[in-house]
């Protein structure tokens, strides 16, 4: 019995030591915890280490890794932030969380010279994804965009529009399918948003009102319906994501794919035969007369409102997001920098051989997803209205348009079950 008590006491003492260990020892470096999605190439470890070193003993950054799945990352973060967890100092924030986190008061606003420093040379629409209500809430780190990838051996010239691409794919004897992301998850929202933006309207207008003009929205819906119900749909379209798309393309099943930039390096490594025939072009148009607005992804770095080390956390986040860090991210993980001036840098042109300028152009032209605090509701509502994709009848998109609009209207007001 006594042994048991001793054991318990020791355990408690140890826990106490750990709890006190993260503390505010004035002489040593401050411990900062950086919650961020894991990057397989090791970017996060490397930049955390470098910035800790450069701080000259001011702070030490310890990364805490979140899962690769975007919804799971958010779920872990919101549970901690909702409970005002002080163990988070810096948050790796997906571009779509800004409105939500800022409105809930979970992340701190960036001001003064640091604000100027972290937004210098950054693409304006990337800054937009880190802002809410005209205020900046995060330092842009990496951005991302989707390109159209195609097989040069099967397709002479990349199609300019989705209609052309679907027609061309259906006419191919082999590999006549188009890989996209259409499982019921955030990736489908990315596709839907890019199509709606490219058609010339938007899901939500700036002042939290439903956009979705009828004619262009229906045009975007027709594209999905046509793809899903025609011969160009891969067999598991309704459960496809970035990875199944990549795998399908690398297996030689598809002549076309819309996907993020990682797809290129992946194909070179996993399927060199396909990789050497891999062509790239801008995300196709929906309306032949309007330039496309490709998807925009990426991570911005925010300082938690519940951190006990906010002063140094801002400095650390600024370092983690600076140009050197962004170069590390493109070098190790192929993540596009959010600073436009880096696109002529050797590191970037090496990571994107021949298409660095295309990536830059694609980001500049991109149509970001809405930044509303109720984003999660809007995304769920869109996914519910339009999934599975083959429920959209390309000949008659009016009823599905009404459903979509009604769902989004309710979602903005956060009404109803989703």
């Amino acid at each position: 019995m006594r042994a048991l008590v001793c054991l318990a006491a020791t355990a408690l003492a140890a826990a106490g030591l750990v709890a006190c260990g993260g503390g505010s020892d004035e002489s040593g470096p401050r411990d900062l915890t950086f919650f961020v999605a894991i990057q397989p190439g090791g970017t996060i470890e490397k930049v955390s280490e470098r910035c800790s070193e450069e701080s000259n003993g001011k702070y030490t950054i310890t990364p805490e890794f979140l899962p690769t799945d975007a919804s799971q990352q958010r779920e872990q973060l919101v549970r901690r932030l909702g409970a005002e967890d002080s163990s988070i100092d810096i948050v790796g924030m997906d571009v779509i969380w800004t409105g939500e986190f800022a409105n809930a008061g979970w992340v701190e606003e960036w001001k003064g010279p640091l604000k100027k420093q972290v937004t210098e040379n950054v693409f304006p629409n990337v800054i937009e994804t880190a802002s809410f209500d005209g205020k900046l809430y995060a330092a842009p780190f990496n951005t991302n965009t989707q390109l159209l990838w195609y097989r040069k051996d099967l397709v002479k010239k990349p199609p300019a529009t989705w209609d052309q691409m679907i027609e061309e794919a259906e006419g191919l004897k082999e590999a006549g399918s188009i890989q996209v992301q259409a499982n019921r998850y955030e990736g489908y929202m990315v596709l839907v948003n890019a199509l709606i933006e490219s058609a010339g309207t938007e899901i939500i207008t700036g002042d939290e009102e439903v956009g979705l003009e009828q004619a262009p929205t229906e045009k975007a819906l027709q594209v999905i319906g046509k793809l899903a119900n025609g011969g160009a749909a891969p067999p598991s379209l309704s459960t496809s994501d970035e990875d199944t798309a990549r795998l399908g393309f690398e297996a030689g099943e598809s002549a076309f794919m819309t996907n993020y930039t990682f797809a290129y390096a992946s194909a070179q490594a996993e399927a060199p035969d396909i990789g050497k025939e891999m062509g790239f072009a801008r995300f196709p148009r929906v309306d032949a007369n309007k330039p496309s607005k490709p998807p925009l992804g990426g991570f911005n770095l925010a300082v938690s409102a519940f951190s006990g080390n906010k002063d140094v956390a801002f400095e650390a986040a600024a370092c983690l997001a600076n140009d050197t860090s962004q170069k590390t991210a493109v070098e190790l993980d192929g993540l596009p920098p959010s600073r436009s001036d880096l696109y002529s840098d050797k590191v970037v042109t090496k990571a994107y051989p021949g298409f660095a300028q295309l990536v830059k152009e694609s980001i500049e032209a991109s149509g970001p997803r809405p930044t509303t605090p109720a984003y999660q509701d809007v995304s769920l509502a869109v996914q519910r209205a339009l999934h599975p994709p083959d429920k959209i009848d390309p000949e008659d998109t009016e009823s599905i348009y009404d459903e979509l609009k009604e769902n989004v209207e309710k979602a903005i007001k956060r009404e109803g079950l989703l």
Partner: protein
Amino acid sequence: MEAHTTKTSSRTRSERKLAWMLCAPAVLAMLLVTAYPIAYAVVLSLQNVDLRFPDENSFAGLSNYITVLTSSLWWTDIFNTVFLMVVTVSIELVLGMAIALVMHRAIFGRGIVRTSVLIPYGIITVVAAFAWQFAFAPETGFVNDLIGAETDWFGGRFTSFVVIILAEVWKTTPFMALLLLAGLVTIDGQLYEAARVDGASAWQRFTRITLPLMKPAILVALLFRTLDAFRVFDSIFIMTRGALDTESVSILGYNQLISRLNLGLGSAVSVLIFICVFLIALLFVRGFGAKLDEGRPGG
């Protein structure tokens, strides 16, 4: 005479007091870990609480419940849940009974048989769900190769349900079998011998002796499994995330609470799930006469 009664009742009273005192720690613990969260969920369900909009909390009355109960989504999900519950529990009962009989009759290697049957139950549901998902993945799974099909199992509602049901049945049949085995061992072997002497066939012995005597055990097993099956979450979450109308009520609650952070609406869903579970338990205990304390001496 009168003095005797007073004496007994005062003794009874002191015994009752002692009983309460002995129960008190358990009752307190239950109140703390069960009653408090349930009561808190009820309180939340009567308010507009959204973690993303901390300044907009207000009293909502029953509006959250009205929103849930008037939503077609809730009823679709109730249908899915009840459908999954009825199908999986029925299959589990039949299979579980067969396995229990085998385990009961096993002459040698009894320990090994019982242990090996329990393995699926020992595997974490999420892990099992991933295993089934990978097995049925259209391009990389082995099932399509095995049966020579090219089915996209998770591309349709019916086929998704097939995989979910298989995974659930595989996982929880051992639990059912174990509960049934416990009932089986309480049956007096002499009854079978007597029946055999009277010329009863194996089927007659099963339907006339085994089943009636096992009714209490079967009801308890069914009650446990039904309550469990109504809260099905892991398998669906891993395999489809509720897409293609395969959502269960637990996933619906999860979406409101964890994804949307709408604590009011999510709590309303949770409370309604709790009420459903309570009604199922009531139906078993009152309607079918399931006795949870069956098997206790004098119970």
